């Protein structure tokens, strides 16, 4: 070896200022601190967009000092379809189809946000039954969405089995939703004025059977399988702490906000659909770590099952939709409507100019705000924990990129 650098390495003589590599490749930066005279280099690790644990097409640029993350940046836009621009060329009753493709695992709630905004503009009175059907499908969809989170969160820790159990239960819900709406994921069920159709005969027995099994057997089983696992607990407890102040400052909503101890739920604080008539609890966490976010979502599934039971028992009679014109031309104006989707406050900010197309359609995606909080939360953690923290916030790239 003629290179003198190797000789000093071998002799253990390397010290401060003994050699400097002439030019560092892009992405490499000298660390200001050295360990025993040896310098460590910061390395930028590119996670994604095809990384199995980034839940869709999220690309995280993680700058690491050894195992520890010193800086994180989310690079997004891989799923950008221009939903907001496309909406300006759609009719008002077709906005739900775009919302379905935003947050694609909880489509009903997105559709509902768009429908509520259009109804606010139209000042149309929605029949009571439509409200109840909207809540019923929303809660079914919430369980399905939380099960996807539960399954993939387990995958992030390396657990495979519980993912399959979660998908089994999700299939049961998708079958029910398919019977109700005709579709498994892109429902297009909630429209301005009400819902597309009434419940098919015999579906209430199916829903009841599912809720009985889910509440009494499957959900405790899920909780025991993942949450009762000591390895899982030691993996998630204490990581990714989002304080109450940070959560509010970064605009978090939904389970992520509630895990930080803020009791805010659109269903309780600004009730819509049938929620004013229903009884449910809003679970909150204490410390705001990944474990609290797990507990809050598990409790939300329990509450959703409780809501479904109430909704099936008290389902009113009557029409399932108000009479609205075929082509909607809401008067000019600007409104904001929000729902509590499974990821937080999904809002639609709608500007009408009186024509049959929206003038401006803005989709407030709760995951976008959770994602920008991640950039603040992740530094200081080990690189293996990054995957866990992303998983615990349940970000959905479909609605972030829109």
């Amino acid at each position, binding site marked *: 070896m003629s290179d003198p650098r190797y000789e000093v390495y071998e002799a253990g003589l390397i010290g401060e200022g003994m050699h400097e590599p002439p030019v560092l490749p892009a992405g490499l930066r000298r660390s200001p601190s050295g360990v025993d005279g040896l310098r460590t280099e910061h390395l930028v690790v590119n996670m994604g967009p095809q990384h199995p644990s980034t839940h869709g097409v999220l690309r995280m640029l993680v700058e690491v000092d050894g195992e520890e993350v010193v800086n994180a*940046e989310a690079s*997004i*836009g891989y799923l*950008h379809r*221009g939903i*907001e*621009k*496309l909406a*300006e*060329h759609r009719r008002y009753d077709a906005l739900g189809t775009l919302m379905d493709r935003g947050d694609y695992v909880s489509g009903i709630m997105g559709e509902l946000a768009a429908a509520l905004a259009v109804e*606010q503009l139209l000042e149309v009175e929605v029949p009571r039954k439509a409200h109840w059907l909207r809540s019923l499908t929303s809660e079914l969809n919430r369980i399905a969405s939380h099960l996807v989170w539960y399954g993939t969160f387990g995958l992030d820790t390396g657990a495979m089995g519980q993912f399959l159990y979660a998908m089994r239960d999700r299939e049961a819900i998708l079958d029910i939703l398919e019977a109700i709406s005709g579709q498994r994921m892109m429902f297009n069920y909630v429209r301005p004025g009400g819902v597309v159709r009434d419940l098919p005969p015999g579906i209430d027995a199916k829903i009841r059977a599912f809720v009985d099994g889910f509440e009494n057997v499957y959900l405790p089983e899920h909780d025991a399988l993942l949450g009762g696992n000591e390895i899982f607990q030691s993996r998630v407890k204490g990581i990714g702490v989002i304080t109450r102040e940070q959560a*509010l*400052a*970064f*605009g978090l*909503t939904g389970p992520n906000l509630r895990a930080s101890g*803020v009791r*805010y739920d659109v269903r309780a*604080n600004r009730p819509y659909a049938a929620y004013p008539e229903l009884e449910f609890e809003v679970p909150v966490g204490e410390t705001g770590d990944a474990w609290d976010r797990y507990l809050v979502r598990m409790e939300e599934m329990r509450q959703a099952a409780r809501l479904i039971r109430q909704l099936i028992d008290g389902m009113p009679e009557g029409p399932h939709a108000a009479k609205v014109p075929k082509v909607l031309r809401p008067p000019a*104006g*600007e*409104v*904001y409507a929000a729902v509590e989707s499974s990821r937080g*406050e999904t*809002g639609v*900010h709608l*500007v009408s100019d009186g024509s049959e197309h929206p*003038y*401006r359609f*803005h989709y*407030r995606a709760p995951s*976008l*705000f959770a*994602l*920008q909080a991640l*950039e*603040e939360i992740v530094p200081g953690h080990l690189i293996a924990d990054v995957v866990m923290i992303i998983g615990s916030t349940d970000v959905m790239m479909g609605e972030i*990129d*829109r």
Partner: protein
Amino acid sequence: MLRVADVERLVAGIEGAAASEERLGIVVRVGRGSVEETLAQLKVAGFNWLVDLLGTDTGEHVEITYHLRSYEAGQDVFVKTAVPYDGELASVWQICPAALMPERETAELFGLRLSGHPNPKRLLTTDGVEPLLRKDVAVRTPEEFRR
């Protein structure tokens, strides 16, 4: 429940700020230069939660809407300001960190320059993509795009 008069009092010292009750809720319209001051004053009054930030192409300028919320009062206030086309969007991230990504998105989709932002890069699209949400940018089919 806050009324327009209460919000007017909160923003009384700010030049050109006018509060009004609209369909959307309570809307405060301010000049471009006093946005930061308005948000800071409202933040002291409890509106510390930036729910949303969006732009609208009104045909004359880009209207930026800051959607604020007070958790304690359970109420929303919308702050609106006008930014000329190709103008400068001053970042408010130091008052509301939640504005970091929505500001990048709004600036790129309306063709505005972002100033005072720690990371003023594009968020969703790559370099060279037109400001998509401007009304003078048309939606094209892939065939039209290739031509």
